[in-house]
């Protein structure tokens, strides 16, 4: 009967495809991780190894491929395949892969997710990766970044890059309004005055102040001398934190020079800035490549350092939030020895220079950030690297994934008008404090 034939055919087809796959899987497994971390580089063994390298940003693929090519040039037996997966799917995929012991050989790690993987023993401890090396080691990286990928005293990733937040401004709109471009003399008050003038003279929004932590209120909170979470303690309910938070929220709520939260739901700050609908925004350095790929905004904007707090409760009034990624490898990797060798390479000065020149992001290795500046010499990218001097690591803790959403929901209530700043910080102090106490 026809149906039976079909069924038979189908089963046959499935069995065949299964068998074909089993074969290919065993060849990749053959490279097995028998070698210890201190063994000779995989390149010397003469064994062919193919490593997979998981990333989530298509804009950085060429940069990662340049790194892979440089490594293969030195170690012809090792080929590295860069696999890009969109941000949302990346983490679902990584979680499944981790459960099944099938993680990529090398993959990007983010501070939001790091603790989950490190605490479940998914990442290889790389604390001693550079032992005995003279020209390499973790002292070459910003301390905050190294600390960020440290869990229970052990380091689980090689720092990849860092980013800071700057003030992006549209030169054309500034010219049109006759306002002087932002520079290092700017304060919170100057920003407000400039935004007001632009709105009055041109009708264009002077500043975009959407709800945002990394590219928003965290910067002003630390500029005022406050903090949210640090060393397992909360600092929400302090005068300085309140001042910084109130200032940032006021930019949207108290003046008419910023679009409202309703308007940002229609089009986000970046879209509005790139379309010439707002004159200024706080902008993370990771946006530079996409912005320079957009011919609408390319050539019309530049970057300045963030304005300083006018009357900070404590400190100099300067701060810019920084954060960064790391490269990690899996404890269950089949090619662990080769992966660790590649990881070691990624943390060298040479690799960081390649990374910087590709324009992917600011390389983490101290002193190599200059290479990133050369990618777009027409922009004042130095503003980003200069701010590292007083950069503040993006706040986090083991339980960030739990208190992060609470912070967002509570501050959003201030925007929605259901809480005042004072009520919000009091609430955060208790609720986040309770979560931190469980660490």
């Amino acid at each position, binding site marked *: 009967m026809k149906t039976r034939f079909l069924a038979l055919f189908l089963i046959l087809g499935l069995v065949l495809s299964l068998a074909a796959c089993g074969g290919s899987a065993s060849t990749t497994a053959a490279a097995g991780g028998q070698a210890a971390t201190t063994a000779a580089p995989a390149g010397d063994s003469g064994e062919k190894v193919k490593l997979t390298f998981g990333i989530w940003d298509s804009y950085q693929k060429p940069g990662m491929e340049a790194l892979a090519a440089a490594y293969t040039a030195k170690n012809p037996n090792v080929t590295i395949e860069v696999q890009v997966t969109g941000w949302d799917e990346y983490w679902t995929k990584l979680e499944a892969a981790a459960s099944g012991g099938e993680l990529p050989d090398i993959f990007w790690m983010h501070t939001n997710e790091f603790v989950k993987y490190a605490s479940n023993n998914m990442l290889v401890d790389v604390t001693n990766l550079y032992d005995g090396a003279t020209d390499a080691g973790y002292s070459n990286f910003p301390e905050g970044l190294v600390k960020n990928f440290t869990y229970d005293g052990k380091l689980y990733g090689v720092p990849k890059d860092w980013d800071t937040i700057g003030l992006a401004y549209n030169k054309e709109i500034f010219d049109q309004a006759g306002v002087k471009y932002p520079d290092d003399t700017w304060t919170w008050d100057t920003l407000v005055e400039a935004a007001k003038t632009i709105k009055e003279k041109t009708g264009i929004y002077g500043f975009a102040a959407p*709800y945002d932590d990394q590219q928003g209120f965290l910067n002003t909170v630390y500029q005022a001398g406050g903090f949210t979470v640090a060393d397992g303690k909360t600092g929400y309910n302090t005068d300085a934190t309140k001042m910084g938070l109130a200032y940032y929220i006021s930019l949207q709520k108290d003046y008419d020079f910023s679009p409202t939260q309703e308007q940002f739901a*229609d089009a986000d700050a970046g879209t509005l800035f790139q379309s010439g609908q707002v004159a200024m925004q706080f902008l993370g350095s990771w946006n530079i490549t996409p912005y320079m790929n957009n011919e609408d905004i390319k050539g019309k904007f530049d970057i300045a350092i963030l304005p300083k707090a006018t009357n900070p409760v404590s400190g100099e009034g300067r701060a810019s939030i920084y954060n960064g990624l790391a490269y990690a490898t899996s404890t269950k990797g089949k090619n662990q020895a080769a992966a660790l060798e590649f990881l070691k390479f990624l943390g060298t000065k040479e690799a960081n220079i390649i990374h910087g020149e590709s324009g992917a992001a600011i390389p983490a290795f101290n002193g190599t950030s200059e290479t990133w500046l050369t990618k777009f010499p027409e922009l004042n990218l130095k503003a980003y690297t200069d701010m590292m001097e007083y950069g503040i690591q993006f706040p986090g803790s083991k339980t960030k994934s739990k208190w992060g*959403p609470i912070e967002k929901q509570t501050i*959003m209530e201030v925007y929605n008008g259901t809480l005042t700043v004072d009520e919000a910080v009091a609430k955060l102090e208790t609720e986040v404090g309770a979560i931190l106490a469980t660490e």
Partner: protein
Amino acid sequence: MTSTHIAQVKRARRLSHDAGWGYLMVAPTILGLIILNIYPFFHSFYMSFSETMLFGNWEWVGLDNYRKMFSDPNMWRATGNTLYFVLLTVPLGIFLALAFASMLNSQIKGRDALRAIYFLPMIVAPAAIAMVWKWLYNTEYGLINQFLSLLIGDDVKINWISNPKLALPAAAIVAIWSSIGYDIILLLAGLQAIPRSYYEAADIDGANFISKFFHITIPMVSPTMFFVLIMRLMAALKQFDLVYMMITDTNPAFQQSQTLMYLFYRESFQVGNKGYASALVLWTFVIILAFTAIQFVGQKKWVHYDQ
């Protein structure tokens, strides 16, 4: 032997005969279900009694997740939002699908082309759907507000996706729009199975369009409609992706729009609270089960099976 006795024997024989074939014919499906779905379900069920189960590590916490869930205002709000979403999408969606399916089933010019167009949204990239509807709903430049302004002769500035009262209805419109193609296909299949002779007989009796619709079309297509209803109910109660794409967590209307599965997604994949997320799945499951059970009881009143 009496005739009833013969019938009983026959029936018993047929029952055992049927049973063998029955088990054989459902075997592949049931086997697959056990492996693919029932086992993972019990896995989730088990997880709901534990604290963050990750990569096989967990800690038994008993009913803690359930206690937390029933005292979580976000969960109750999400439940309310989900039920509201069902109310917004299911009745209207089915009515429109049936109306369009009937229209596409009538003898009109360009029927094939029209059908093809109605099925198109099913294969359009979700990113395109979210993008285009966000533009349509845009307060300042959106076509919908511009059209309304033209109609009223006054400037209309409705915050479709950021007004807490309108965001969920706006998402519901998109949901109906993107699922109507599926429902039309199913209902068309049902409509086409109706023998033309029924309509011809009614024509001879002088029945008009309306009476044919209610006396032939609806009863004859009711098994398919029942199917569509159940599927729509389940899909609406599990709504996640559309709301997720259109209403982010910094939208002022977020609290009034977050559905149960949206909350599940955030707890499971963003907060990493698998145990609590599993409890949410169980809760959603119970709600869907209740809705489905009611429909299966209620169908006896309006669904006509030819038996």
